């Protein structure tokens, strides 16, 4: 089974979803990501979904869940690069992902994570990028 790589950049984790998500992959990603947040003491999680063309309610809920789990583990989640068609679908499904921060691209997402971490009083073990 294909696996979605979780990359570590400084105190952030970058997840770039390049293939169509199916449910078991989504569950595996949740497991993997929460484990990595704890192991790497990450403060931010960025999920890039710019390659994702189809999002159903399950994937929408998964994004919401990941954000909630990260929050419990004191990490900020930013979803970046959502396509217009995907955004419309999610809104029509009634999933507006109110708990998730969003940004247009990876650059802006990284800036948003920095800003959010600073607002929370900075990181204990902040390493320069």
């Amino acid at each position, binding site marked *: 089974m294909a696996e979605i790589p979780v990359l570590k950049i400084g105190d952030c984790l970058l997840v770039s979803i390049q293939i169509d998500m199916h449910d078991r992959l989504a569950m595996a990603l949740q497991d993997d990501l929460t484990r990595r947040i704890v192991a790497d003491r990450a403060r931010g999680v960025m999920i890039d979904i710019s390659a994702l063309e189809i999002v159903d309610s399950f994937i929408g809920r998964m994004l919401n869940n990941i954000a909630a789990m990260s929050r419990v583990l004191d990490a900020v989640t930013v*979803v*970046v690069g959502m*396509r*217009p068609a*995907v*955004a419309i679908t999610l*809104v029509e499904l009634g999933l*507006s*992902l109110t708990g998730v921060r969003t940004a247009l691209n990876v650059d*802006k997402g990284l800036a948003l994570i920095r800003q959010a971490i600073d607002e929370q009083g900075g990181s204990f073990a902040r390493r320069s990028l």
Partner: protein
Amino acid sequence: MEAKSMTAIPRLLAGNEQALLDAWLDSQRKSGTLRSGQISEAQLGNDSRRLLAALSEGAASGKVDDIATPAWDHARNVLEEVSRSRAALGLSPSETATFVFSLKEPLFELLRRTANGDPERLAHEMWTATLLIDKLGLYTIETFVNSRDAVILRQQQELLELSTPVVRLWEGILVLPLIGTLDSARTQTVMESLLEEIVAEGAEIAIIDITGVPTVDTLVAQHLIKTVAAARLMGADCIISGIRPQIAQTIVHLGLELGVISKATMADAFALALRRLGKAVTENPRLRPEQ
């Protein structure tokens, strides 16, 4: 069945074309078709002559009671052409229908004269003629309405294209000036073009200006909320501007919660957007050109 084949209408139409035409034009003049000045006397005469010729051609087939047969093709074409041109001129449906119905008076008069005092025969002929002209009239109206509908449909399409421009106000700031009532179809177009433009421009802030939206009800508010939510999902913030006092009252009375920053004017929204992006507009007297 036998009575129908006995009708003298085809023979009368063929034999008295000029007399009928004159009497018909007279009756049309009396009914005030020309009064509005939208149709010239020459055009009216031309239309009438062509229709009458087509009528006698159709009636010659003997099927006076069924204008759907191929023998009446010519008559139907003339009617279509006439009603379409009148619809384009902006004439009312009754004015267009009067064109056909006014043929009744001269035709009945002709029938009366040729009936030779036979009431049975006259009644039968009148009934046949009435049926025929009613069918022609209804056909005219149908075509008229169809061509009107086509015009309305085209205008709707044009309006849809016209009313969804997304304007780049500054680097990273887009404006969507909404004009007219929002319905589901329009909102879909508006939403799509805004989101596409957000991606293309990499805009962080989108101002939705509703100065031109006449009323905001729960449905319109729902559409606005959806657009804002979709833009947020993509990582852009929305500001709603141009809320008139009346609309502010309506929103509160309806108990709506827009859940988005709103400003009274687009200028305020623009100022806020600039501040969000860490930019400012400053006054510099030295840059002002000498008067």
